[in-house]
């Protein structure tokens, strides 16, 4: 692939990168050529989007169909009070455009589904997962496996976070968790709460791993699940192995195309769910 040249504006803006031997002009041109898709412009997507944009990732895709709610602003630093009630994708585009107008931001104001995932994913080099639910987690995994895209995964719960990178042929989310929990067994952050600063840490870990993949430097967190405990301020890690019996990436895969992930996870279909107003906790 021919890398795009750096403009005088690039050279000024990315000076602190250009003077690092491991990045340099070639690295910055790799960043400029890179296309990264963020699933979710929320807690994890916010810091990831801001740092990837600041670092000069040339194209950033944002998938999110939500609007900015006041309860998001405790942690979703991509959005601001002046954007309440407006689209997160538009809010994200405006914020990123202000931070770094050299970045091309592509918005997808739609839920990620089995119908659109392949079409969206295939336009990107790396997928960064900041979704908040199991159906999307399995969908993002399977689509990444089928398209052989690296998936930079992160998740958070109260004071604890996890992050890893799944690389093609080296294991996937289903190797770690073959089956989803039954509905209600594992509460979401909306149900159980999350320390507002926590996604800042995990989303930045995802951004760092994404930049390392683009620059092809360092040691990827692939094969290791990072476990972050904010209360004890401890980081541990466990191994992630490719499961030869994995239904998606194993020796004899039985899932070879995208499925109905809401049915797989036993949750009601989005189309059929009634958009009842959620009572606000006092």
């Amino acid at each position, binding site marked *: 692939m021919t890398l795009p040249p750096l403009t005088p504006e690039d050279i000024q803006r990315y000076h602190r990168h250009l003077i690092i031997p491991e990045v340099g002009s070639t690295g910055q041109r790799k960043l400029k050529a890179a296309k990264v898709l963020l699933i*979710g412009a929320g807690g994890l997507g916010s810091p990831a989007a801001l740092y990837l944009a600041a670092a000069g990732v040339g194209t950033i895709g944002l998938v999110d169909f939500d609007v900015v709610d006041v309860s998001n602003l405790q942690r979703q630093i991509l959005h601001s009070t002046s954007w309440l009630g407006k689209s997160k994708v538009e809010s994200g585009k405006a914020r990123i455009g202000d931070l770094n107008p050299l970045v091309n931001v592509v918005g997808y104001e739609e839920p990620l589904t089995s119908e659109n995932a392949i079409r969206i994913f295939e336009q990107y080099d790396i997928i960064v997962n900041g979704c908040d639910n*199991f159906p999307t987690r399995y969908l993002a995994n399977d689509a990444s496996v089928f398209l052989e895209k690296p998936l930079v995964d992160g998740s*958070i*719960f109260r*004071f*604890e976070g996890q992050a890893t990178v799944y690389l093609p042929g080296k294991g996937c989310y289903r190797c770690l968790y073959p089956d989803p929990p039954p509905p209600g067994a594992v*509460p*979401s952050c909306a149900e159980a709460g*999350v320390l507002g600063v926590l996604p800042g840490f995990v989303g930045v870990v995802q951004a760092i791993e994404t930049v390392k993949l683009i620059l092809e430097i360092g040691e990827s967190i692939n094969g290791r699940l990072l476990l972050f405990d904010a209360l004890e301020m401890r980081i541990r890690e*466990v191994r992630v192995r490719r499961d030869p019996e994995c239904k998606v990436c194993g020796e004899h895969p039985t899932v070879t195309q995208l499925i109905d992930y809401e049915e797989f996870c036993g949750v009601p279909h989005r189309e059929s769910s009634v958009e009842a107003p959620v009572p606000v906790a006092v």
Partner: protein
Amino acid sequence: MAVEVRIPPLVQRVTGGARSLNASGVTVNELLADLDRQFPGFSKEIRDDSGQVHRFVNIYVNDEDVRFLNKLDTPVKDGDVVSILPAMAGGAA
């Protein structure tokens, strides 16, 4: 012999809020049984009605998933750390 077992947030409701506990036993199964004796209801948090550990709950001895070792019969020794890691949904949209 004592092995440290790391307790995930959702299970902490049956361990009196303890995030880490010492348990006795020479296999993972024995550690879990010991914790169930210390904290009634512990097993129900991680096992289904037939007694199998939930598929969305992974157990590690140090950094290795017991599925790739000897499953619940994986031996443990003094100084090992056992982690119980249920799948996490979020994200925080």
